[in-house]
């Protein structure tokens, strides 16, 4: 009996070795796993990452902020309102169905119904099929960001999602809470096929054997994603060899990763800006531009980047980072304590004043620490800060009510264009239009007017000049307190070639990852 057991065991062992030859398994530890398999239910970083693994967009961003053909091989402007995309032929979905123009239209029409994507797609009039491999996207007004938006046009397998599920409901139903076929099943054209999913425990994917992108150098055959929430545990999992790749890496552990010869730390500049807004309606002192300037001058944001962020962020003085059309080189960080004090004196607040401040403590990297440091820095110019920090689950409710004089907000524009910053954070808060949804305090009709004009300006040079002018006005007006743009950080074993697959958006293209 024993002999037989040994025999089978050694046989199994031998078998597993032959199978694993050439097979490359990648174990990934992220702070959270995608909430669903339906790419159109929620617009979040985690869902976008999944979309890039299991599905493919028409075009995608490259590392240097250019567009790269994916399901669309080329594109052209037909007229002011129409952009034509020529689609790739011979692309197969995971289900075996062939990809064509009707999948693009079907996915686009479905996305318009999604609460999360609706607003983003608002400039579009519709999607029209020209032939099996050509589609036209029409916009309501001339729209300069059609290609930026095409990075969101992931093709879903229309045949696969058509019909009714076992509960008699349409398979493509868009649902946040409840049972829906699309929430638990996926068929895309992407490099990975989902093979197993237990929410918050594990997501397993295998390389799609009929993947269209045969030129991709990627050689990951099995991709296992485990959410590891606790920072220390995630780092420990990498250092102990339990996983091959982690993200994000907490700044306090950068040194540890650097010191370990088996792993490497990779970072890339991101475009999420961290700011404090100053509510002029709540606190009359903040109405005075000199006081706002004093606050901006009192905040040593370079020091925060160095000490709190351990150098993994880029100091900011404007909304959009370098590489954006709006970027103005002349806008420099303003830390100058003497000037800040002088400005306070000039404004008649020599003896300072009190204000309330609020920040989340689990939303942005080191958010609470940044807020504490800011409160201290403002103390130096006589401003007494009553700071309150709280988990994001409670923070957003408080933010909606605008309950503090200074509130922290970080923002990453979905369009990778600084117009988006202005629309959400700077334009006057208006519940009808939805502009200024995350603006708690600044309102300048002139900026509003310009931001709206930018939306339909398709002349790139003109548009860029307008965006830069907005940045200049906000800078002169001290409309907000800029801190930094967060870097994305990844820790990986040495044999992973991570650098080519990471990008500003924090969507590591694992399909192209090479394991040596």
């Amino acid at each position, binding site marked *: 009996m024993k002999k037989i057991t040994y025999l089978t065991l050694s046989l199994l062992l031998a078998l597993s070795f032959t199978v694993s030859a050439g097979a490359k398994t990648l174990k990934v530890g992220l702070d959270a796993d995608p909430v669903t398999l339906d790419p159109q239910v929620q617009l979040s970083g985690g869902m976008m990452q999944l979309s890039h693994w299991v599905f493919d967009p028409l075009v995608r961003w490259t590392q240097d902020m250019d567009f790269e053909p994916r399901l669309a091989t080329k594109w052209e402007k037909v007229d002011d309102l129409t952009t034509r995309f020529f689609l790739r032929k011979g692309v197969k979905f995971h289900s075996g169905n062939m990809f064509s123009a009707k999948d693009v239209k079907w996915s686009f029409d479905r996305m318009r119904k999604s609460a999360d994507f609706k607003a983003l797609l608002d400039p579009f009039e519709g999607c029209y099929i020209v032939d099996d491999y050509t589609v036209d996207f029409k916009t309501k007004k001339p729209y300069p960001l059609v290609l930026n938006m095409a990075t969101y046009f992931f093709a879903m397998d229309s045949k696969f999602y058509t019909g009714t599920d076992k509960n008699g409901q349409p398979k493509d139903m868009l649902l946040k809470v409840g049972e829906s076929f699309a929430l638990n099943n996926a068929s895309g054209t992407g490099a990975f096929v989902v093979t197993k999913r*237990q*929410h*918050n425990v594990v997501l397993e994917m295998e390389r799609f054997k009929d993947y269209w992108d045969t030129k991709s150098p990627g050689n990951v055959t099995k991709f296992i994603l485990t959410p590891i929430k606790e920072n220390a545990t995630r780092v420990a999992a990498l250092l102990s060899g339990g996983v091959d790749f982690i993200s994000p890496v907490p700044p306090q552990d950068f040194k540890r990763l650097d010191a370990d010869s088996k792993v490497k730390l990779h970072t890339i500049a991101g475009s999420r800006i961290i700011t404090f807004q100053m509510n002029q309606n709540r606190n009359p002192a903040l109405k005075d531009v000199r006081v706002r300037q004093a606050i901006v001058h009192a905040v040593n944001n370079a020091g925060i980047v160095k000490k709190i962020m351990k150098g993994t962020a880029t100091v900011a003085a404007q909304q959009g980072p370098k590489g954006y059309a709006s970027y103005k080189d002349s806008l420099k960080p303003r830390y100058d304590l003497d000037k800040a004090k002088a400005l306070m004196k000039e404004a008649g607040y020599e003896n300072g004043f009190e204000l309330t401040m609020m920040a989340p403590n689990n939303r942005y990297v080191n958010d609470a620490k940044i807020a504490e440091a800011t409160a201290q820095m403002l103390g130096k110019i006589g401003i007494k800060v009553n700071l309150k920090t709280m988990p994001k689950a409670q923070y957003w409710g408080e933010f909606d009510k605008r309950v503090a004089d200074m509130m922290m907000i970080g923002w990453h524009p979905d369009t990778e264009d600084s117009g988006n910053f202005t629309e959400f954070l700077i334009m006057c808060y208006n519940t009808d239009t939805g502009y200024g949804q995350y603006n708690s305090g600044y309102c300048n009709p002139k900026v509003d007017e310009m931001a709206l004009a930018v939306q339909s300006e398709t002349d790139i040079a003109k548009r860029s000049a307008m965006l830069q002018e907005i940045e200049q006005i906000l800078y002169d007006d001290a409309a907000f307190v800029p801190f930094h743009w967060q870097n994305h950080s990844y820790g990986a074993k040495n044999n992973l070639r991570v650098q080519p697959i990471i990008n500003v958006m924090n969507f590591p293209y694992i399909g192209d990852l090479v394991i040596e």
Partner: protein
Amino acid sequence: MFAFIVRRVIQAILVMLVISLVGFSIKDQIGDPVRDLVGERVSPAERAEIAEQLGLNDPFFTQYSRFVKNAFTKGDLGRSFLYNKPNLEVIFEHAPATIELVFGTALIIIFISLPLGVYCALRPKSILSRFAMSFSTLGVSMPVYLTAILLIFLFAIHWQVLPSYGRGDLIDLFGNGWWHTGMLTIDGLKHLILPCVSLSTLMLPLFIRLIRSEMMEVLETEYIKYAWAKGLSPARVWMVHAFKNTLLPVITVFGVQIGIMFAFTLLTELVFQWPGMGFMFLEAVHRADISLLIAYLVVVASLFVFVNTVVDILYGFINPTVRITGTK
């Protein structure tokens, strides 16, 4: 005995009603679950619509009576926003991980504290006893979180002999997905060692000390002296006469502590990314999944009542005097 159990069940229901009411009354303080279901760009109007669909805008008592009604008529405790499944299913999915963690910890505690506690009582002056006593002081004063991180650093990173997170290879025990066990595979057992050891450091010292002092006390009693005087063998005096009576209070404390241990798995599970109920609870708090939180409170309350009832019954078997008063 029957009347005793009936009384206990009625008590349990009352406890659960009160707990669910408390849960319902604080749920608005935890946060807005809709925020976590949508991206940050979604407009307030869209959010309000989703809240309406989920029934979150209904008055307090409409929501509460709906919950109680569904709980009693259908055994349905609502649906988790975060996991998008019925709450009970989510809880039962996570329960095996926690139960195995607590079970493993209980085994460690029993097999170490019993012999060690008895030894310390019998040979209080020996080197091993002194070592055990001072070591247990250290154990009590170290927070579990720290112990866990230290263990990970030593065994997973420095020596790389044990895995640092998760449950490892699992086997579907009944073939229907109800219970995935890590106790039947070598890899699964390896994954259990560190979490169990770090969780046991919390209770182990307590039990060594408890057994030691109880045993010492019993050894001083008249009937033990009488047993010695009768000329019984040491083994018989210690094991049959002294040890059995030592166990009584120890079992009571053990029952209560096991319940507390379920609560303490929270930190251990967080550090080891152990997909159990404590971890699930923390996620639910972070993501404002109030529906799951309330269901979890109710389930935990019933668990506590159940464990205590079992302990009371066990107690009755060991000490007949309890049984007599229990059935009056």
